[in-house]
């Protein structure tokens, strides 16, 4: 057996941006982490490849990506191999935290310097906070990886303390009584089958590139109330589901992500701000702290943790950040929590892989992405899922930033193939300021039973489709030649689009629509679709009739939008279906 305490080292022989090579004489493990000693600081790195040394048959050459800026690095600088793969610290205190892509706590680092300097680091979780630990095993019990040995309250979350997943069957040799402990203190000792003793604490490190197992995996089916109407009505996502959310810049991906953070009904939100604007992550952790969680009424930050590897931070850490965030999500799923993970943006993650493979001199695939990028994307989304065994779920919503807004590019295509749902944001709708710009005609969902029946969904969609077709006809042959009946159908579709599909994310009432309100809206929409409207032509010719129909629908839309912005009580909600029924009869409905 290898002596794990023996220090294994190497020395740099080549430096190119974030990619380095080192010569070594001992053993090196694929995927292990390393530290490079540069200018008095230790920089974090990860082993990518091991090759023979053409100059020295007794040595080998290891290729590594470095997670920090290498300015000042020289040939010969020492590399120390750590023996452990890239990992994340899991334990109480994860919630409300804000880290960089390698789980360095950003608030803690800011005490040292306003800028992130190479070599800076701090413990991932606060080591001073005391947690009220209640044991749930006793001496002599048999436990193995993933088993619960006790719990601590983490805010409103009952945080279970687990035996690290890598452990085999062990016997509990000692366990503390109910007490207050921090994450560095021992709470139990277990003995494995070889007789080796292991100390257990509240927190442990978990490798991030291989998934935490499911107990009893299921196909996601129960829809999440996201508060966004077009999603919940037409393209719902289930607990444990996966969604790709591509859109050109300016189409509203960020606003939608923020809206999901605020309103999605979930226990925990893990956000990987991966290679995106720093300002957006800041908005989340500074402003969301002031907002209320829709289910608990507490600060929204109490259910969140954020990995902010923003666009100007070292590229190599971008890849790590997504895996680290995923592993935190899996950890809470294993504890029975409903977790939603948002990754913004998976394209930046893929670009980080592209930059790296380019430097490594790999033969490039389409648009210079690594050849295996579709497999890597699939592998990532596969880690989401629902676990009936624990009652938890991990939902993964990834944004995609397609180059040129072109959905044919490799990352968007691979994502469409990898995910169960697809929310495509449309440039045309964004240009017309029709937000959220999810095209109601271009989406996919794998959830059959949503908040409204499949049949209602189909009818809604077919009206929107009709309106779209008639709109195109009007643009090509002119309004005059369109029959009145078609024009009414067009106005109905327009009304559903304007009053239901579009939503104001910045209005207090309109920003979030819950299932009860959706039901009311659906009732109104269905009766509008099902019924002929009693328009009277009287003395008017077709032209004048259409003008008058448009005016009536304009008034209805204005009334409906006012309702969207204001109706909250049961009475106020009930006004909408009433108003629609009166509109169908062409009676006075304004209240």
């Amino acid at each position, binding site marked *: 057996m290898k002596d794990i305490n023996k220090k294994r080292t190497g020395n740099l022989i080549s*430096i190119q941006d974030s990619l380095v090579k080192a010569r070594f004489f001992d053993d090196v493990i694929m995927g292990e982490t390393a530290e490079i000693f540069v200018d008095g600081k230790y920089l974090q790195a990860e082993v990518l490849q091991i090759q023979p040394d053409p100059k020295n048959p007794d040595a080998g050459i290891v290729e590594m990506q470095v997670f920090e800026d290498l300015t000042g690095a020289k040939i010969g600088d020492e590399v120390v191999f750590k023996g452990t793969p890239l990992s994340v610290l899991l334990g109480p205190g994860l919630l409300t935290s804000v880290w960089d892509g390698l789980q360095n706590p950003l608030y803690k680092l800011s005490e040292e310097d306003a800028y992130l300097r190479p070599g800076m680091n701090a413990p991932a979780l606060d080591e001073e906070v005391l947690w009220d630990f209640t044991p749930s095993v006793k001496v002599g019990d048999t436990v193995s990886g993933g088993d619960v040995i006790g719990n601590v309250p983490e805010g409103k979350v009952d945080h279970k303390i687990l035996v690290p997943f890598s452990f085999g069957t062990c016997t509990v040799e000692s366990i503390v009584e109910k007490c207050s402990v921090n994450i560095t203190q021992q709470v139990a000792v277990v003995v494995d089958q070889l007789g080796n003793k292991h100390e257990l604490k509240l927190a442990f490190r978990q490798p991030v590139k291989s998934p935490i197992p499911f107990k009893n995996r299921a196909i996601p089916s129960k829809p999440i109330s996201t508060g966004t109407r077009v999603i919940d009505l037409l393209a719902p996502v289930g607990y444990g589901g996966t969604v790709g959310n591509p859109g050109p810049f300016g189409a509203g991906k960020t606003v939608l992500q923020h809206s999901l953070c605020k309103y999605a009904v979930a226990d925990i939100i893990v956000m990987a701000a991966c290679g995106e604007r720093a300002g957006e992550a800041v908005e989340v952790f500074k402003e969301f702290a002031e907002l209320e969680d829709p289910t608990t009424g507490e600060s929204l930050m109490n259910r969140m943790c954020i990995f902010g590897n923003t666009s*100007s931070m070292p590229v190599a850490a971008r890849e790590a950040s997504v895996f680290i965030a995923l592993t935190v999500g899996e950890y809470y799923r294993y504890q029975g929590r409903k977790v939603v993970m948002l990754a913004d943006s998976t394209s930046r993650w893929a670009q980080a892989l592209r930059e790296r493979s380019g430097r490594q001199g790999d033969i490039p695939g389409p648009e210079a992405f690594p050849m295996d990028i579709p497999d890597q994307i699939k592998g990532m989304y596969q880690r989401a899922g629902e676990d009936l065994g624990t009652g938890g779920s991990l939902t993964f919503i990834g944004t995609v930033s397609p180059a040129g807004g072109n959905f044919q590019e490799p990352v968007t295509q691979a994502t469409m193939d990898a995910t169960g749902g697809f929310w495509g944001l449309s440039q045309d709708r964004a240009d017309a300021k029709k937000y959220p710009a999810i095209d109601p005609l271009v989406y996919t969902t794998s959830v059959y039973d949503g908040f409204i029946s499949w049949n209602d969904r189909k009818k809604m969609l077919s009206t929107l489709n009709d309106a779209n077709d008639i709109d195109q006809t009007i643009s090509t042959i*002119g309004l005059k030649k369109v029959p009145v009946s078609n024009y009414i159908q067009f106005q109905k579709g327009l009304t559903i689009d304007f009053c239901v599909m579009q939503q104001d994310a*910045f209005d207090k009432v309109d920003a979030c629509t819950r299932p009860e309100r959706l039901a009311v809206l659906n009732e109104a929409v269905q009766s509008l679709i099902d019924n002929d409207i009693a328009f009277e032509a009287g003395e008017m010719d077709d032209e004048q009739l259409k003008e008058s129909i448009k005016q009536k629908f304009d008034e209805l839309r204005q009334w409906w939008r006012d309702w969207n912005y204001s109706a909250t009580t049961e009475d106020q909600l009930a006004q909408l279906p009433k108003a629609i029924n009166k509109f169908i009869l062409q009676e006075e409905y304004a209240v």
Partner: protein
Amino acid sequence: MIRKEINKISEVGKALISVEGNPGVALNHVVELLEADSGQSLSFAKAINISENSTRFQVFNGTAGLSTRTKIRMHEIPLTAGFSTKMLGRSFDGSGAVADGGPDVIFEKQVSTRLDTLNPTVRNVPKQPLWTGIPMIDVFNTLVKSQKIPIFAGPTEPYNRLLSQIAQGAQADVIIFAGIGLKFDEYQYFKEQLSQSGNIDKTIMFTHLAGDSQIKGLMLPDVALSVAREFGDQGKDVLVLLTDMTNWSNILRNVANYQDMIPSLQGYPGSLYSELAKRYEVAADIEGAGSITIIGATTLESLEDPVPDNTGYITEGQFFLENGKLKLARSLSRLKQGVNGKTRSDHRAIMTAMASLLADAEKAYEASEVGAANDAYSQKLLRYRTDFISNIEEPFGEPIGLEAALDKCWSILKRHFDPTETGLSKKLIEEYWDKN
């Protein structure tokens, strides 16, 4: 201090030189190139790839005239930029050397050009508007202090005129002008405009003219932004003008090509996004200090070109200039929501209503081109569109305040529509319709 020297250059290429073996130079450290016999300084250079077999440098002044006998003197420090408040009113080149023929500047300190990331936790959420007097910006896409935003424009559009108009009105303590690949007349234009507006004394110009050494153009934003950041750290509100970032990206592409990097799209390196982001992300409102706002210019043939495309994902919106007009449909300020809810009660609503009507009007305009917009409402929309383009999308003219601009919007709506056609709430209609 005796500095180590290397006597043998093995390879001289475009903008790059290499030496065999490893002379002990560190990554990104600076060396000086000396004429072999006279010892006269020819240029500085920066180590970019090092291995035990060879070391490669980017030469600031270009490689013309260098030979294998040229000496390399090691300085053993990373690249820095000189900083002094005496730089105000002066012009410098891409490496931070005086370029206006004036006296040398005695620098107070040297600042790192590495552009380390600001810890996100010390960023303030941007909340302070930066008024420009241009209705299209102030009403529809409010500019916010610490914003990073480019002007997207075709190469023949008056984007530099717009940049300069914004700079003249903007309330900043310091203006840093960073020009890459400029034509001489553009440089002169800025200088004159800034002088005329009386802003020259709070301006520092960093200029790289088309035809100057590529490496100096490549490093110019880092030097300019490091100086801007130092002012920001000292509590100043700084406005940085970067023009034109497409020129800069093209230099990046050339140099990546000289370095044999694998190209991704249209020859640009795969790192284009990260490289642009590193510069634009310097924009920040810093807790307990000042702020840095960046307005860039990005010239383009098509929005799908890699430079504007990547830029759009990095910046907080864009101003789109076409036929001399600031186009509403393609312009966006991502930070406007943080400020436009605290102005006048009708601000957001009128912005949304007018935009939505304009989108309908564009459709009517397309229909009209095939003779399919003959109904009364389409005709209304077409008249509205004409009015909007000439009165709202026009960026050049007398600056007007926000209130006046909003009133102007109401009067345009009233000229063309009935209240219910606007999609505005009853409450706002009652409050503002008859006032204007």
